[in-house]
């Protein structure tokens, strides 16, 4: 039947506009990378790369979780607090072997995540309010557990110490784990039912329900993933610093959201890629690194710039989203 000729998209060999839109994060990363290379002598050194890579991996885990949550149309502000609780718990159980000191904090993180999920689904509380409350409550727990003091991990098992500080083939272990996590996330998002259902729910929740997807369960699992990954980041942070701190992870929710959104995930849900989040995380890492190397700039400037970048990206997103929408209708 030729009445409906639906192949409306002209196929170009290389659609540079689409590329710019789709890979904006990658391009930004490359530009920043080149800039830093020419500007700072210490930047293009193995030592610095190792540092930056390790630095960003912990944020990276949180950002992967955040990407899932934002994809599904939610937000999770409690990640930093979860990270703190997991970190101090990891410090407390660190003498009992690496398995225990990962599994217990991660289970706690999952419990927090499930709580968030239940608040959002069963109790129908708007995600940012629900997670704002749990952010507060979980931070309180971190303080209560520690008496507001940092918890030393001096008698930690050797494996636990390696987790945050070790290298394999010269690459920091956290970075290897982060890259593995990104690969896993990409696979999950592209190749599994669960992953596709996340996109479906974020794209059109009502329709997903109609199609028989168990929307509540999917959301709860997503918040649990975010809790688990934040907790894991907390474990690594404790291993690296040799102590669990109840104030750890403050403000990380912002950086994680920033990395996700800079990576091209739509803040409204349903559209986004985990490779984008990888670039987003690297971009925030390079910016921090540049601030450190600049030296004469106050650390507060970093927050100002981070805020400005996030705001800029969100505004830009809202503009392009509108353009493509009106183009369709």
């Amino acid at each position, binding site marked *: 039947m030729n009445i409906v000729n639906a192949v409306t998209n002209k196929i170009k060999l290389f659609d540079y506009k689409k590329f710019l839109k789709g890979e904006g994060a990658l391009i930004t990363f490359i530009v920043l990378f080149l800039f830093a290379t020419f500007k700072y002598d210490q930047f293009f050194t193995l030592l610095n790369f190792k540092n930056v890579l390790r630095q960003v991996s912990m944020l990276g885990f949180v950002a992967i979780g955040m990407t899932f949550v934002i994809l599904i149309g939610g937000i999770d502000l409690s990640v930093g607090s979860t990270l703190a609780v997991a970190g101090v718990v990891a410090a407390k159980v660190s003498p009992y072997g690496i398995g225990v000191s990962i599994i217990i904090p991660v289970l706690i993180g999952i419990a927090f995540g499930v709580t968030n999920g239940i608040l959002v689904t069963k109790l129908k*509380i708007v995600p940012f*309010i629900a997670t*704002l409350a*749990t952010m507060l409550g979980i931070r309180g*727990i971190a303080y209560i557990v520690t008496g*507001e003091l940092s918890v030393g991990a001096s008698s930690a098992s050797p494996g636990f110490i390696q987790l945050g500080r070790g290298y394999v083939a010269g690459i920091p272990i956290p970075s290897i784990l982060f890259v593995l996590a990104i690969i896993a996330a990409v696979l999950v998002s592209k190749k599994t039912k669960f992953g596709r259902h996340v996109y479906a729910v974020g794209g059109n929740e009502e329709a997903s329900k109609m199609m028989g997807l168990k929307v509540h369960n999917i959301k709860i699992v997503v918040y649990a993933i975010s809790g688990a990954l934040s907790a894991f980041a907390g474990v690594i942070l404790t291993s690296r610093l040799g102590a669990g701190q109840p104030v750890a992870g403050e403000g990380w929710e912002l950086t994680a959201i920033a990395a996700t959104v800079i990576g091209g995930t739509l803040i409204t849900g349903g559209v986004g890629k985990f490779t984008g989040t990888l670039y987003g995380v690297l971009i925030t890492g390079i910016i921090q690194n540049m601030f450190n190397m600049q030296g004469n700039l106050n650390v507060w400037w970093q927050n100002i710039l981070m*805020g400005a970048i996030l705001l800029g990206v*969100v505004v830009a997103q809202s503009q392009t989203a509108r353009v493509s929408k009106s183009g369709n209708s």
Partner: protein
Amino acid sequence: MKTITKKSSVNVNQDRDWKLLLNKYATPILLVLLIAVNAIFTPNFANVNTMWNILIQMTTILLTALGMTLVIASGGIDISVGSVMAISSIVTAKSLGFGVVPAVILGLLISAVCGVFIGFIIARFKIQPIIVTLPMMIGIRGIAQVINDSQLLNFNEPAFSFLGTYKFGGSVPIQVFIMIIVSASVYFIANKMSFGRYVQAMGDNYKASRLTGINTFMVTISIYMISATLAGFAGIIETARLSAADANAIGKLMELDAIAAVAVGGTPMNGGRPNVIGTIFGVLIIQIITVAVNMNNIPYTYSLVLKAIVIILALWARRDK
């Protein structure tokens, strides 16, 4: 199966009446309960000094929560209020050299500018307010910290400290009057002025509001300006009370207390009728929790958990709107 459905539907109706009643008076009942329990169990709670203390300490939360009431009623949220407090605090303290009045005006002005900027971004680009105010929260505090290199700024300026420490007749703190005046004004704006109707209409149905001729752009900007200015004012009073400005500490987590108070007070979180009286009750509840925890020698951190639970319970109780 069918009969069950029928039966339960009857029950639901009775249930609802009961719930409606509870919903309506939940906040005052909770407040009375809290006061009663504390009067009995907390040593020194039922005491005039404690009362003045509660009132002095709740000023900052009340001012920000009143602004937040309008913001939430319009369907928005503003989590940058704590940072606005910080910037107005540090700006006012820094510029005391120009005289008290210019300094205060400058502090209020900078707060208003923050609010206008936030409102403009939200109204112009139609981005969810949480996403706009989140970077603003971080950025504005960053600026506040940069201004004095993140150092504590002490000052000795009695004329300014008056704003936070004066007591009428030796016992009634000036804060009480400030709270009464601001509460009455916001109540008036929300309930008697057309502006209040516009705020509610936009929170309830934005599209229809626009088609009814409401200047949604200007109203949005005004709402966030009012909210930020009130937050800034709160910051100034707090700075005056302490005779010091600390950009790191002042207003931290204030947005949470304010949102909690509004939620407990019964303004619908998705927008709708601003419940100013409810917010005042909500602030009292939040403040009494903080004070009671403190007076019972329970570490402050427990109040964080308690507040989280109160927010969630309040929202859960009102989820069937």
